[in-house]
C-alpha cells in the first residue's frame, strides 16, 4: 500500500472515482488525515526554526492541529451547505472532499519546506532589533500557508467537477466551502499562535489570551486603523 498522500500526487483519479461512488470513504478519510498531519508537521517544524528548536517542535504539533481543526469545524457546515444548495452528498463524501483539499494543501506546504527553511536561516536572529525581519517572515509564511490552502482547493474542484450536478451549483458550493475554510482557518491559526514567534515575548505553546478576541477583531480594531492613520 502506498504512503498516505501518494495518491494525491499519482493516480488521484482512482481516489476521486471512489469518493464520487461513495466507496472506501473511511479508509480514504484516515489516509488523508495522516497525509495532512505529516505534511503540515514538516512545514511546521521548519516554520518555528527561526526561534529555535522549542518553537519548531511546538509548530510541528500545532500546524497539523490547525488543519485538522479547520477541517473538523467546517465539515458539518460544508455538508449542510451542499445539501441546501442542491448537491445531495453523503456526509462521508463531504468529509473526504473537505479533508482532501487541506491534505493537498498540506503536501504543497511540505514541498515548500526547503524554501521556508532557507528564508528562516538567512534572516537575522530574533530580538527587538529584528522587527523588520519578523514582519517579512510573517508575511512570507502567511502567503505560503494561505497560497497552499487555496492551491489545495484545486484538488477539491477537480473532484467536484466529477459530481453529477449543474456547474452553477458546483461553483456555489465550492465558493461557500472555500470561504468557510479561509474564515475558520484564519481564526484557528490565530488562536493557536505563536507560529513565527514574537521578537518581544518568550516562546510559549499557546498564548494565555488565545481565546481572548478573534483575528477579525484584531484586523478591524488594530491593523485597519493603523493603516488608515498612514494615509
Amino acid at each position, binding site marked *: 500500500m502506498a504512503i498516505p498522500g501518494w495518491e*494525491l*500526487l*499519482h493516480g488521484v483519479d482512482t481516489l476521486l472515482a471512489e469518493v464520487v461512488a461513495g466507496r472506501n470513504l473511511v479508509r480514504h478519510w484516515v489516509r488523508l488525515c495522516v497525509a495532512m498531519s505529516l505534511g503540515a508537521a514538516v512545514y511546521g517544524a521548519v516554520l518555528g526554526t527561526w526561534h529555535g528548536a522549542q518553537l519548531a517542535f511546538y509548530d510541528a504539533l500545532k500546524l497539523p492541529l490547525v488543519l485538522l481543526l479547520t477541517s473538523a469545524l467546517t465539515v458539518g457546515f460544508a455538508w449542510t451547505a451542499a445539501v441546501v444548495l442542491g448537491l445531495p452528498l453523503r456526509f462521508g463524501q463531504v468529509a473526504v472532499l473537505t479533508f482532501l483539499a487541506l491534505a*493537498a494543501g498540506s*503536501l*504543497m506546504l*511540505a*514541498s*515548500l*519546506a*526547503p*524554501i521556508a527553511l*532557507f*528564508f528562516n*536561516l*538567512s*534572516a*537575522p*536572529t530574533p530580538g527587538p532589533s529584528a522587527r*523588520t*525581519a519578523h514582519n*517579512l517572515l510573517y508575511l512570507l509564511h502567511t502567503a505560503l500557508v494561505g*497560497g497552499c490552502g487555496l*492551491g*489545495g482547493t*484545486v*484538488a477539491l474542484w*477537480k473532484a467536484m467537477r466529477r459530481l453529477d450536478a449543474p456547474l452553477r451549483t458546483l461553483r456555489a458550493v465550492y465558493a461557500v466551502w472555500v470561504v468557510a475554510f479561509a474564515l475558520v482557518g484564519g481564526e484557528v491559526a490565530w488562536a493557536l499562535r505563536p507560529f513565527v514567534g514574537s521578537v518581544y515575548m518568550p516562546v510559549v505553546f499557546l498564548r494565555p489570551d488565545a481565546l481572548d478576541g478573534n483575528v477579525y477583531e484584531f484586523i478591524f480594531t488594530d491593523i485597519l486603523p493603523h493603516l488608515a492613520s498612514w494615509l
Partner: protein
Amino acid sequence: METLSDLPPNVPQPRSLTGVFNELLIRPLAFLDRARNGGQASPFRMIAASTLCYALYGAAAGFFQGGDQILVAALKAPLIILFTLLLCLPSLYVFSAVAGAEWTRRSFLAVLAGFAGTLALVLLALLPINWLFSSSSRHLSSATIIQFFLWLIALGLAWRFLGKGLQATGARGGMILWLLLFCVVSLQAATVLRPVLSRKPGGAIFVYGKKSFLEQMGNVFEEEDKEAAQKAAKKH
C-alpha cells in the same frame, strides 16, 4: 500551442550539445518526448552545459566593477541559479502533480533540464546586452535594477518551455505562481551569496550576515543616496 501529440514520431536525437539547445528553441517538447519514450535525453549533460552559460552571463555582469569581480560573478551566477533550482525542486514536483501532471522520474528530469537549458539560452542571448549595461553603468543601484529586469525577461521566456512541458504532462493552471516563487527565491539566494556585482577593495568574496533581499535592495539605494550627498557636500 504545440503538444506532444503534434510531434512527429521518433524525433531523432541531435548529435551535438548545440543541436540539443537548438532543438529546445525550435521544438521545445521533442526533448521531453524522447525522455518519455525511453530515448536518450541526457538531462545532466544539459544542466552541465547550462551551468557554463550561467557562468558566462555572470562574467558579463561582473564587468560592472571589472577586475577579479568578473571571475567572482562568473562563479556566483551558476551557484545562485542552481541553488534556487534545488530549493524549488520539491515544490515544482508537488504543485504540478496537484495541478494534474503525471510524472515519471525521466519526464520530471527532462522538464527540469529543459527549463534550465532554456533559461541558459535566453541568458546567453542577453549576454551582450548585459555586458553593455554592466560596463557602462556608474551606479550599483542602476546596475542592480538592470540585472533584475534582465532576469525577469529570462524567466518570462524560459516559461515558454516550462509552461508547455507542464501542459504536455497534464498540469492545468496556476503553475505561473511557481515561477514567481522561483524568482523570489533566486533574489534571496543572490543576497545570501552577495556581493555579486561589486565589492569594496580587498573585501571578502562572501559576506557573512543574515539579511533579506528586500533589506539588501534598500541598502543598495541608501548607499547610493549617501554617496550622492557626500559628493554634493564636497562641491559646496
